[in-house]
């Protein structure tokens, strides 16, 4: 869990969030579902911008993805989105971004699985 490779899901973030809303788990579950629905559409926008090599179109969806991912503790995805946002802001999308898009897709799936897993584990207890 270094700066260069943060965890897929930092559960402590979700637990703090839950505590901050007086342990209202149903709210956190709704929040994760909203994140998964909106995040999927941000992913589409990010990947489209990267494929098109459109730096300026990359900034906002990457920013929103970064910000919401950090809120729910999806730290690896948040870190990747942060790099993409910075790349978009610099105006230059590097040649290697095709690989980056593929890695991002993997990170999204991992984060989504981890979040769903967290919800399921809560339901079991």
């Amino acid at each position: 869990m270094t700066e260069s490779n943060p965890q897929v899901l930092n559960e402590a973030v979700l637990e703090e969030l839950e505590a901050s809303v007086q342990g209202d788990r149903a709210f956190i579950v709704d929040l994760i579902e909203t994140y998964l629905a909106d995040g999927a559409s941000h992913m589409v926008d990010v990947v489209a911008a990267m494929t098109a090599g459109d730096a300026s179109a990359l900034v906002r969806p990457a920013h929103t993805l970064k910000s919401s991912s950090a809120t729910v503790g999806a730290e690896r995805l948040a870190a990747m989105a942060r790099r993409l946002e910075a790349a978009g802001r610099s105006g230059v999308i590097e040649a290697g971004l095709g690989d980056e898009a593929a890695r991002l897709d993997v990170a999204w799936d991992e984060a989504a699985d981890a979040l769903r897993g967290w919800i399921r584990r809560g339901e079991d207890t």
Partner: protein
Amino acid sequence: MKGGRIVLVVDDSRVNRLVLARQLSGMGVEVMEAENGREALDVLRDHTVAIDTVLLDVVMPELDGYETLAAMKADDAIRHIPVIMVSGVEELESVIRCIELGATDYLPKPINPRILAARLNASLIAKQLRDLELEHIEQQRLLTTTIERQRLELSRFLSPQIASLISSPDGELMLAGHRRLITVAFCDLRGFTTFAEQADPEELFGVLGEYHRMMGDAIVEHGGTLEHFAGDGVMIFFNDPVTQDDHVERAVRMAVAMRERFAPIAAGWRKRGYELGFGVGIAVGYATLGRIGFEGRYDYGAIGNVVILASRLSSQAGANQILLSQRAVGMVEDLVEVESIGDLEIKGLSRPVSASNVVGAANR
């Protein structure tokens, strides 16, 4: 935190808005949401909602945080609403620019609920103080308007000198009572009682109105202080509350002007069958002046022998006579032409009083 306060959350991430809204309602704050700066400005400019603090994200589509803040600061109606910037650490440069532009505070993402509560509370208190201040300014303005209106009303009911005395800083001292040399003029109409018995009320008020208007003009022109009207009787004094070195002369010139203007009015009345004559008594002497009366109804008045003497001279005056006390004659003899009418027995005074009628006044 005080309830009933409204916070506007501006963030393009629905997830972030949900979290903030939930945490804020847990603090007893009412939450409104906007997805971008343009929506936020629409809410802020809507007169039916009063936002107390804005939590503003920096990076947003449509209108970003910096542009939204700039638009708020350029709009007099909403520039005073506190704005707390919400942003990630990598946006610190933008946050600094926002604070330079007038944002009140900054919350780093991810948001710590305790820091959120503390900063929001500080902002809401500041807003509340500011609202109180505005309310106070508004009350002050209403009070000033009321005082101005009262002053205007007072000047309608009282003579202008007394109205301005009441609103002047040394007014209280003057109202409390003081002694001063004054000239008192009493005017009334001969034949008024008979007329009042015979005339219709409409006719009576018409005649009195005409008479009072003429008298009022002459009083104001000569700077007299009107003490009271009582039917046809009018009492005016000079040299108080405004001091006048030529107070006797003013009183005499005013009486002469009244007598001249009375003639055509009386001629009109005569055609309608009313025989009314005008008489004046003028005396000079020391009197006690100030607030006279009782709680609920005070007048500014003068008390003293000079008042009684002027009143009695007025009663003794025939139609078109202006009777001066001896002392008054002594003070204006170079300016007016008088004829002595000898000694008058005056009720309430042990010795007879010598009086003179004003025949004419020298032009100034």
